[in-house]
């Protein structure tokens, strides 16, 4: 029997798990009961002396401000796709297209007939 990769891949796909997971309702009901049990079993929180508590509270507030700033700068949590803001092509070419592709909104720069010859500056 011959084994081209597409045949092997077809057989691997048959190993997909479709029937073994527990029913969602049963699972989450069980989960709820166990989570409640764990909450009851977890130890009581340790109370810090008030003076350390204030230092820690101030440090946490500062950290929250810093992380909010970092989070905003990093751009996570915003909606929409990736974007190409500007481009500069350093060689001869016929045309360039910038598109937004797919429902995931990938950003695509496609350069037609790009020539690795004499340089030519063209900028968006």
């Amino acid at each position, binding site marked *: 029997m011959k084994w081209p*990769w597409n045949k092997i891949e077809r057989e691997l796909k048959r190993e997909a798990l479709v029937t073994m997971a527990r029913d969602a309702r049963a699972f989450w009901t069980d989960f709820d009961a166990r989570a409640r049990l764990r909450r009851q079993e977890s130890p009581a929180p340790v109370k810090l002396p008030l*003076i*350390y508590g204030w*230092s*820690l509270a*101030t*440090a*946490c507030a*500062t*950290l929250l401000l*810093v*992380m909010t700033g*970092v*989070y905003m*700068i*990093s*751009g*996570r949590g*915003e909606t*929409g*796709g*990736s*974007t*190409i*803001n*500007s*481009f*500069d*092509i*350093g*060689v001869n*070419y016929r045309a*360039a297209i910038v*598109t937004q*592709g*797919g429902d*995931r*909104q*990938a*950003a*695509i*720069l*496609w*350069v*037609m*007939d*790009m*020539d*690795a010859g004499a*340089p030519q500056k063209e900028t968006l």
Partner: protein
Amino acid sequence: MKNAALFTAILAGMLTASTAMAGGTLSIRLVEASNSGSGGAAGLGDVIDVLKSNVPGYSQFTLIASGSKSLPADGSSIVVGKYQIMCKGNQKELSIEVSSGHKHLLSVTASLRDGIPVIFGGLPSDKGKHVLVFVAQ
């Protein structure tokens, strides 16, 4: 005095941790788009649909080389296949320069969402075109 020292130590530790936690990873993949060969899309599972839908005139995509950089990028270069790629900045405003040999090919500034690719295509290759795929996580 002791409390001030404790406060400073906690703050310094948390600021360091927050800086470390802010980073991510930029993966860079060099793909050959062609119409020949079996063109197995190994290594391209997360982007193959986008490539097939948006790369004009080619049906086969093969991963040639890959690399990664931590974000924010510090302006150093890495080699991915036959290209030198310099990246600078964070994923919201990332500058990318692509060169081959001593030839500067293109410079791009882009904003990357987690897991959503930025793709540069049309670089010449033997069998078709080279495509560079950038994904931030």
